[in-house]
């Protein structure tokens, strides 16, 4: 029960926030996030001891959905990050958007997103997880497109939605295969049924599908392009979604399913190589940007790649490194994003090449940025150092097999150090350049609401670094236990002694500073490499989107051509082909046995042929309608002669009304009386009609040839009088035995009547108004 409480509470807060005034909405949001954080904090001690709280949620037994929520170590880390950083972000948003009267929409959306994230990471059921997963994509779409008047926002939001949504579909396929193999939708049940899952013939297919889904969500190569473009969102959104929470959801699912797949070679290969490729891509592309937010976005891509790689490589220590780095990255990235927002707010620009020496006018911001950057660069005594050391140690444990990974990781870390220095030293230290234009007043420290977030997060980075054992025992150890599927003994230390890892860290920092000194010259050179702009996956996405729209337009104009005769022709032809196709599949035409003797009733056939001839040879539509009426009446006579009086009765009445109504329609509506088709068209239409007639006749013959099962008619005949007090079996079936079907039929009749009346009314020319006082020529 406790577990569902924060989710419901945040949901209610979202509704309240959308109804309240803007200021109150932000307050409601912050309070809700803090309340949820408190609820989860109360669970910390029990999870640290290994007691895992569970709750029932969203179970649908009729569909086989087990439902349920579960808070183990991995989920706990995530929910604390989601609610804690969420509270700080909501506070930041109140300050950042202080002059936006519609910001309660943003607050409500952020709360709904928070709800979705909480549900996704605590879900113990595959379907519940998926529903919340898609909800995060949907809210992300609405949040990125918050400034929907701008085309760039709309395009970025659509791109994010299509990429993550497409990945979601692939993920669903993988999850369904997983459920079928394990026999349950419960995540803990699936992980427990590991042998059954891995023995399934489609096991690797399911695994690859799930990996693809997670890769799109966590912006791995080649799906990374949506993340920098999503920076069109307002900064609070970028800080929350695209650094600390939503993009980590893919990493979460990979970690969650790690106990299942961690021994599989394909899993290890895909994750480690995909991860390191993403990290390298992120860092190379980050060096081409000067927009602060885009730099941060690309470094987020790098961090996500590192996380994925760490989950993939074999040693247990890598999972510890991954969990630690997860927390570390959330702290410093959210802080840096908020600082970028503060700079944008104060100085009016986010271009790093234009901003220098801001520390003189924004001292508190500079301090927070410095602390966060130290953590990002992995310097002691910050918790970033602990994480980086763990990463190197894990890789070194792999031995010579990991040489490529170590070298690549080294380069990635060095580049990250360089960017960290750019984001702190270059922006804030030194003398101030000419004051950038575009700001309302000279740059200054932002208001308190915008300062709390970065300062708190930066200080947390420092505190966790100086007291790593607390962090290790309380948070990281249960998380690693959950990810490995077996108890782990995790101890985080700040100082490991002089060893190869320390040497690597020192070398990283040195190379990083060298890269920083080259930054100013590297950026324009790298930007000039237009090859990356012309052939990247982003361009591929644009081409695919344009091609899809072209295909849709062409299909619609072909199918919806507006010609009524064309529609009828298509319908009739498809029906004929379907009937014939079915007959061919069933093995040919069957002919009923036992010819009947030719008696007077055969004359009806002759009458029908006369009607048919009249219809085909008629010169005007009126003649054709009357001839068709003859065919209809003959059909009614056939029914009568062969013992179906009710049907005959109905057919007589319907045919009469049909002829009257069609004739009236022909006289009132502007339908051309004469047949205007060319000889070729007539032959074509005759062919289609003939084909349809032959097909239906063949189907009827096949039906007659198969043995008749009289059970239903016998039962109805026997029950009609005693149970339903009626001797007319047909009517009794319509009104009593199958009354619900009849109710549906008359509803359809009523709807048809409404539709016809509406169409005819809308087609009528407007009634002429009273003549104008100036006379008819005015």
């Amino acid at each position, binding site marked *: 029960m406790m577990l569902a409480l924060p989710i419901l509470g945040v949901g209610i807060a979202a509704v309240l926030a959308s109804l309240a005034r803007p200021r109150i909405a932000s307050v409601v949001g912050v309070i809700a996030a803090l309340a949820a954080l408190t609820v989860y904090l109360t669970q910390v001690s029990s999870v640290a001891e290994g007691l895992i709280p569970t709750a029932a949620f969203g179970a649908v037994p009729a569909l086989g959905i087990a439902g349920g929520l579960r808070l183990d170590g991995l989920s706990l880390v995530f929910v604390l990050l989601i609610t804690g950083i969420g509270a700080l972000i909501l506070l930041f948003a109140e300050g950042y958007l202080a002059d936006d009267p519609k910001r309660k929409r943003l607050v409500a959306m952020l709360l709904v997103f928070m709800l979705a994230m909480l549900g996704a990471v605590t879900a113990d059921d595959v379907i519940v997880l998926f529903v919340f997963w898609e909800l995060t994509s949907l809210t992300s779409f609405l949040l990125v497109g918050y400034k929907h008047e701008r085309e760039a926002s709309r395009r970025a939001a659509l791109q994010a939605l299509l990429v993550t949504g497409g990945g979601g579909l692939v993920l669903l396929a993988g999850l369904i295969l997983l459920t079928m193999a394990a026999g349950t939708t419960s995540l803990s049940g699936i992980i427990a049924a590991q042998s059954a899952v891995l023995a399934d013939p489609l096991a690797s297919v399911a695994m690859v599908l799930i990996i693809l889904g997670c890769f799109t969500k966590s912006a791995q190569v080649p799906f990374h392009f949506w993340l920098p473009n999503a920076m069109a969102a307002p900064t609070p959104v970028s800080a929350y979604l695209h650094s600390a929470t939503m993009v980590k959801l893919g990493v979460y699912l990979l970690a969650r399913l790690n106990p299942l797949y961690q021994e599989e070679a394909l899993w290890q290969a895909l994750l480690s190589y995909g991860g390191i490729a993403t990290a390298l891509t992120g860092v190379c592309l980050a060096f081409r940007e000067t927009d602060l937010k885009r730099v941060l976005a690309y470094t987020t891509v790098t961090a996500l790649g590192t996380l994925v790689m760490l989950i993939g490589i074999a040693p247990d220590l890598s999972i510890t490194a991954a969990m630690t780095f997860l927390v570390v990255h959330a702290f410093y990235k959210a802080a840096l994003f908020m600082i970028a927002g503060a700079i944008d707010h104060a100085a009016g620009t986010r271009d790093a090449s234009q901003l220098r020496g801001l520390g003189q006018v924004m001292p508190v911001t500079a301090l927070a940025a410095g602390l966060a950057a130290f953590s990002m660069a992995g310097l002691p005594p910050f918790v970033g150092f602990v994480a980086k050391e763990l990463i190197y140690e894990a890789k070194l444990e792999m031995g010579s097999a990991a040489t490529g990974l170590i070298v690549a990781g080294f380069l990635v870390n060095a580049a990250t150090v360089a960017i960290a220095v750019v984001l702190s030293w270059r922006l804030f230290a030194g003398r101030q350049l000419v004051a950038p234009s575009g700001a309302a007043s000279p740059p200054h420290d932002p208001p308190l609401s915008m300062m709390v977030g970065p300062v708190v997060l930066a200080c947390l980075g420092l505190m966790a670094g100086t007291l790593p054992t607390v962090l290790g025992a309380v948070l990281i150890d249960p998380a690693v236990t959950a990810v490995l599927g077996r108890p782990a003994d995790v101890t985080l230390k700040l100082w490991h002694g002089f060893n190869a890892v320390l040497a690597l860290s020192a070398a990283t920092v040195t190379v990083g500073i060298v890269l920083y000194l080259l930054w100013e010259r590297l950026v324009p050179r790298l930007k000039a490499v237009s090859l990356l702009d012309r052939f990247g996956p982003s361009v591929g996405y644009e081409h695919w989107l344009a091609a899809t729209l072209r295909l849709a337009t062409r299909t619609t104009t072909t199918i919806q051509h507006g010609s009524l005769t064309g529609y009828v022709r298509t319908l009739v032809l498809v029906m004929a082909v379907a009937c014939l196709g079915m007959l061919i599949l069933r093995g040919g035409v069957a002919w009923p046995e036992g010819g009947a003797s030719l008696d007077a009733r055969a004359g009806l056939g002759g009458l029908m042929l006369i009607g048919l001839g009249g219809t085909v040879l008629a010169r005007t539509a009126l003649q054709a309608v009357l001839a068709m009426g003859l065919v209809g009446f003959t059909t009614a006579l056939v029914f009568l002669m062969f013992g179906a009086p009710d049907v005959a009765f109905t057919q007589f009445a319907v045919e009469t009304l049909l002829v009257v109504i069609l004739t009236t329609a022909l*006289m009132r509506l502007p339908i051309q009386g004469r047949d205007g088709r060319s000889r070729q068209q007539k032959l074509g239409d005759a062919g289609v009609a003939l084909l349809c007639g032959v097909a239906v006749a063949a189907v009827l013959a096949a039906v007659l040839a198969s043995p008749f099962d009289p059970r239903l008619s016998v039962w109805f005949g026997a029950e009609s009088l005693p149970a339903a007090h*009626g*001797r*007319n079996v047909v009517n009794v079936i319509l009104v009593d035995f199958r*009354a619900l079907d009849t*109710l549906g039929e008359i509803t359809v009749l009523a709807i048809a009547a409404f539709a016809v009346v509406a169409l005819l009314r809308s087609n*009528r020319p407007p009634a002429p108004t009273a003549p104008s006082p100036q006379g008819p020529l005015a």
Partner: protein
Amino acid sequence: MNPSLILRTSAPLLLWMPLVVSLYVLVRGHNDPGGGFIGGLIAAGGVLFYAIARGPTAARAVLRLSPVALCGLGVLVATASGIPALLTPETPYLTHFWWFPTLGVTLPLGTALVFDLGVYLTVLGMASALFCALVEEAQ
């Protein structure tokens, strides 16, 4: 359409005879050929002839309700005929109930007739709606 004098004068006969016949067909439907659909079609035939002879406004006046309202009324009546079945828990929706009062002869009365009446009204309303919309004169 300018109907002849003969047609205009004999219009009431063209209306009322089919209506009476349709009611007869409706009521006899349970034991002999007939029923709600056929009754409705025959009544609609009468209304259509009246509309040809005297015009659609006159036909609508005869019906009292607008034709689409008649459709709706028919569906409502048919749906309502199944509601008594919901009052007893063991009978599902649209189970019909019967009473056999004796007033000289034993009359079989049941909710099935109410259902058939709903069908009758719907069919009558639909055909009248179609026709009156087609012959609407722009006034």
